[in-house]
């Protein structure tokens, strides 16, 4: 597609500069325009964009186009481009920074909402009491209905447990029975573990909105909870 002509009296690549300041290792300028990234990227062609063209627009200071394109949400920041890029350029990281440059109210609503909810505790927004209730309810049901699992446990806030386990919020909200297999496995393996009644969500959508403060806040909260329980290991379930 023929783009509009680009007149470069002076290059003012403000977005590029901003990224370089935030991420000194971004190496945007190093791009050889070899296209290896575009060849390996499943998002190539979406929104008439690909990682190489994206970097090129940044270098040429086409900031308007960069800030406007929704390709930043087509890119999943998977870093497969960086994996093989001869210069090791991390397009995912660059996309993250640009997502953050978008005003909150102009970001995809549900994505931002997931993070906002996460900041309060978990990405689905169910109250912590509900999580505790669901866990206990499901556990009760298994112990009653499946005699061989009458001793199954799903401890919550057990201080000093060796392992801390997080739980993707999707299960307690929409498919609670999906929690059971893991409990059983842990039980058979004889693992001393616990959930926590706060900051228990295994997902974290604040990784994707572009605000490092939100991301940091949520991870910090998790760390505090796990340390306060005194667990040696923090198991992520995904």
């Amino acid at each position: 597609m023929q783009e509009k002509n680009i007149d470069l009296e002076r290059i003012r690549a403000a977005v590029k500069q901003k990224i370089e300041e935030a991420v000194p290792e971004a190496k945007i300028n190093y791009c050889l325009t070899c296209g290896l990234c575009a060849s390996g990227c499943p998002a190539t062609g979406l929104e008439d964009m690909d990682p190489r063209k994206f970097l090129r627009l940044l270098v040429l200071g086409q900031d308007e186009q960069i800030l406007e394109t929704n390709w930043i949400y087509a890119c999943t920041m998977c870093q497969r481009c960086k994996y093989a890029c001869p210069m090791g350029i991390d397009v995912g990281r660059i996309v993250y920074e640009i997502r953050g440059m978008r005003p909150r109210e102009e970001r995809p609503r549900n994505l931002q909402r997931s993070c906002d909810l996460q900041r309060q505790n978990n990405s689905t927004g169910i109250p912590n009491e509900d999580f505790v209730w669901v866990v206990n309810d499901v556990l009760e049901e298994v112990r009653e209905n499946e005699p061989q699992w009458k001793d199954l446990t799903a401890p919550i806030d057990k201080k000093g447990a060796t392992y801390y386990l997080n739980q993707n919020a999707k299960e307690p909200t929409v498919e609670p029975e999906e929690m059971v297999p893991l409990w059983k496995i842990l039980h058979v393996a004889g693992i001393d573990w616990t959930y926590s009644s706060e900051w228990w969500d295994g997902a974290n959508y604040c990784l994707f909105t572009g605000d490092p403060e939100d991301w940091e806040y949520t991870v910090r909260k998790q760390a505090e909870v796990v340390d306060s329980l005194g667990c040696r290991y923090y198991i992520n379930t995904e």
Partner: protein
Amino acid sequence: MFFATLEGLRRFNIPHKFEFVSIISLYAKWLREGRLKVDPAWNKDGLKFTVQDPCKLVRQGLGDVVAEDLRYVIKKVAGEENFIDVWPRMSNNYCCGGGGGSLQAGFVENRRKYGKLKFDQLSATGADVVITPCHNCHTQVIDICDFYGGKWKTTHLWNWLEKALVIDDSGVQAGKD
């Protein structure tokens, strides 16, 4: 997401006393140690399994080591001969297209076009079951399977691990104490 916590702890230099681990690494470890015992005998019909390597866990997380662990567990659970690997694989695998918040972001058409590569790759294995150890992958793989008319079943690993568990006295007793 594994990477969210792993990288968050590192990037923001968050103090912590625990060690951050993946359940996949632990499954493999417990199987190797004999702490968990499984028998693939349940798979009489020879259901074929393949796998999705979550970017956040593998490429951005623990790399090929955890991808090998993942395969080790699936092969133990489903039978060595019933695992069909994908290509590209492990650290070089494609993102499913559900990552980066795209399931929430709402650009459904883009997300599905993105996922076409994953769909083709998984279809090419001819597998009956796709193991997705990440919730985003799980949701996306189910969606592209439906959308593009795939025939496989998309599941977490734990369901099959549970199915293959050999529960002898020592195992259950351990939990009792």
